[in-house]
């Protein structure tokens, strides 16, 4: 499926804003991305398997934080940094 990649992660994808990866779940998809682009997964998922606080996975119009979510019939996933409505600098 198509995976759109946020700009902070594009140093891993050769600056590609969209790549192709596979997986039956979001976790499997991220594992496959890490296989294709080593190091990418740990920047967005911690060692306990939790999506990092300021990262967001979109499946269609739905935000997804449960990495066990199935991707049946999904043809596009977006991995994006969260915009939290402010910044201290």
């Amino acid at each position, binding site marked *: 499926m198509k995976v759109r990649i946020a700009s902070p992660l594009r140093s891993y994808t050769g600056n590609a804003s969209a790549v192709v990866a596979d997986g039956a779940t979001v976790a499997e998809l991220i594992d496959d991305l890490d296989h294709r682009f*080593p*190091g990418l997964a740990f920047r*967005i998922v*911690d060692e*306990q398997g939790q999506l990092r606080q*300021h*990262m967001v996975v979109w499946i269609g119009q739905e935000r997804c934080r449960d990495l066990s979510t199935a991707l049946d019939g999904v043809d596009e996933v977006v991995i994006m*940094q969260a915009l939290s409505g402010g910044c201290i600098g």
Partner: protein
Amino acid sequence: MTIGTETPWSTRADFEAVGAEMPTDLDGPKLLIGTRKGAWILAADAARERWAVTPPMFLGQIIQHLVLDWRDGRTMLMATKTGHLGPTVFRSTDGGCTWTEANRPPKFRAGDAHGRSVRTVFWLAPGHADEPGAWYAGASPQGLFRSTDGGDTWDPVDGWNDHPNWGTWAEWPDVEGTPDGSMLHSILVDPRDARHLYLALSGGGVFESSDAGGDWRPLNAGCAADFLPDPDVPTGHDPHCVRLHPQRPDRLYQQNHCGIYRMDRPAERWQRIGDNMPRDVGDIGFPVELHPRDPDTAWVFPMDGTDVWPRTSPDGRPAVYVTRDAGDSWSRLDAGLPPRAWFTVKRQAMTVDDRDPVGVYFGTTGGEVWASADEGAHWSRIVGHLPEIYSVEMA
């Protein structure tokens, strides 16, 4: 992942003059600057009079620590994260020319009993001279990690991270800890014995291992803990920075949240040498730096620890203080520093070179680097307008 640059930073053409004139050579010390928004390298001429600076590296990334491996003179490790992405380590084996991400960055084990995950790699320290390629990393939460391959792959030091007392010694869960997270820092390796280690927790205290990190014990007797209801406790202290003298490894200096201390092993009790500081200045601060050859000489940068802890210089009058007699007396060194300023110098943001006389350097939260080529007697600002400076290390 490799981030490449075309030419090494050791090439003079890669630098820009900081002041009006470019240094005629770059044979002097180099400073590795880690900031909230990237890293820079500063280079001086042999006279340490003129400085040049590189363009930013890793612009926008949070660089907690950028450290040269003094054993080979060319390997550098950089502790980094971004506002969104998780923590990692980048490494260079060519003096900063190209950078490659660690294949296995510091991380706790999956299924960790405490449920810990690394938020920040905070401190990097080369290992013993007899163990080339060995490095230690301290993190937030307060984990200890070790690499044996020059920082490419890291493993948890189980003797620390899974110590039965870790949950008592460390701040966990660290919801009440240091605003940026409780951290492990000041990882010290005894140059006589690779198995003899110290580390410090903010907060938590100083700890010692004599078996390469297999077991640990607190080393806090004599340290104040004014913020605890019972100040006479074995752990829970707040060391800000601990240094071991390379020529006299039994001598430790500590800048603590509650004073400046010295310990001469095998003593087990810290002596509060900060009591000899002027009363109106006090002995609160973040960094302490040691003369590379004289174990009796150390520099500190006092800060205001009154009221709500502004952490700026007392009365807004920045000054370095030096002792030449192991803390029995202190002298103020402020010639050339601004008469009034309101910055903070963080624990990794002060360093010394090994020249004679020794150069002393510090970086500020206001993005300035100040230098003295005469052991602190005279100061000049060598660069400004950088982001908030987190670390200044010698290269």
